[in-house]
């Protein structure tokens, strides 16, 4: 699994053209992985959310307190971490100051 992390963008609002451009980059990158038959699934996460803390305390998105947020993830088929890392090359998050965390998924019920 690749987890896309980046610093919150504050009040930055992309223009529709920038949004389109960004979607295109993401789709081309994911399409490239899918063209190799290595795609499993992906989801983008919205920037809004709530956090549940012990004791039933609910806070709105904790983004002010942390340096980065998770923007989404993709699950790919790879034989090892190195192969997954090479698939991560070119991920659009790398061009906007973010980074990709590559982790192995462990199945709970083998």
């Amino acid at each position, binding site marked *: 699994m690749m987890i896309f992390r980046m610093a919150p963008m504050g009040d930055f609002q992309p223009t529709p053209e920038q949004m389109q451009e960004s979607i295109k980059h993401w789709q081309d990158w994911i*399409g490239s992985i*899918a*063209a190799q038959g290595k795609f499993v699934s992906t989801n983008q996460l919205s920037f809004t959310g709530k956090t549940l803390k012990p004791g039933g305390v609910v806070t709105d998105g904790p983004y002010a307190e942390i340096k980065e947020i998770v923007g989404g993830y993709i699950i790919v088929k790879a034989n090892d971490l190195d192969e997954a890392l090479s698939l991560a090359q070119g991920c659009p998050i790398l061009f906007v100051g973010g980074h990709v965390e590559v982790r192995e998924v462990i199945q709970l019920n083998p």
Partner: protein
Amino acid sequence: MDNLVSQLFRTEFRKIVSVLTRTFGLSHIDIAEDIVADTFLLASETWGKKGYPDNPRAWLYTVAKNKTKDYLKRNSLLKKKIELDLKKEGISSELIEIEISNEIIKDSELRMMFAICHPSIPIESQTGLALRILFGFGIEEIADAFLTNKETINKRLHRAKEKLREEKIEFELPGEQDISQRLSSVYLILYLLFNEGYYSTSQNALIRKDICFQAMQLAYILTENEKTNTPELNALIALMCFHSSRFEARMRADEIILLEEQDNSKWDYHLIQTGEFYLNTSAKGKKISKYHLEAAIAYWHTQPNNLDSKWSTILNYYNLLLQLEYSPIIALNRTYAVYQTYGREKAIQEALKLNLNSHHQYHALLGTLYSNFDNALAIEHLSKACELSKSENEKRLIQNKIDKLKQEPN
């Protein structure tokens, strides 16, 4: 067979077999098939001698009905069994009545489609059985379409019918709960058969066209019932229309002409418009199926090449299609769209990641990408493609490209 008889055979065989199968049940589909075949034989003989009846279609239905009654008179055991089955359903059955009306015919056709495209039957058998019963194809024609012999087809059909019995598949419309899954199986078979007709390497162009035409007819039948008329079906029909519009343009004698080399004036613009209508109708609901994406790609291929957004849009649809379902051919087509959108270098980069060394189309694509860039590499890949290809036509096309490159100064 004369023209009218063979024409009626294509349209009515499926209908009469389906109606009779209501009486006999799917496990005796052979009997229904034989009776209808006999009926057409008799039509051929009688009409040849005495001329056509006033209403040839009605004649066929009456004769098939009488033959069925005669058959049941001679086979009292089967008759008793059928009567018993009817009694279980609470229908009095002193006389087995065979009812024929437009509604009954339509309903029977639908039931037959669902029965033949039942997910418990192997796909290969489904397609064979569909060609036989739904398309009214002869064994020889099926063998020709699948590039195999009659014996193989006979065995395949036999196994398919055995499966119908073993799985005790009911001759009925699926209930609310399974209908969407069962419909997917029906769409898939129509899609596979259409593609078989469209892309098959069979030399017989008439049969191939006929397969595509019949697949479309069945798809149209599904639009007439609100339960089976889904956005996905409309997308499938749109796809079939766009492909069919290029039928005349893509064949020259016995070879296939690539899209970019086709003469646009030979495209059937009426079919393209029909396709656009169905594509618009398909834009409902939440689900984007592979038929939606393939239809959208086929639509954009009908648009002029100088349209700025054409290739980046096609690339995007290929990206989405591959996320739904991977296939080597789609991966290669996507790479061609990368070439058209971003140019040669990016496309070569993407192609080399594909790991499809054993596919001749992979080498053909790399041959194209390297042409007039690194001709030595281009020739190497084209030669490999030539070696791997199984079609003589294709080998010749590729060889032509190699010869041309060899004449160019590198």
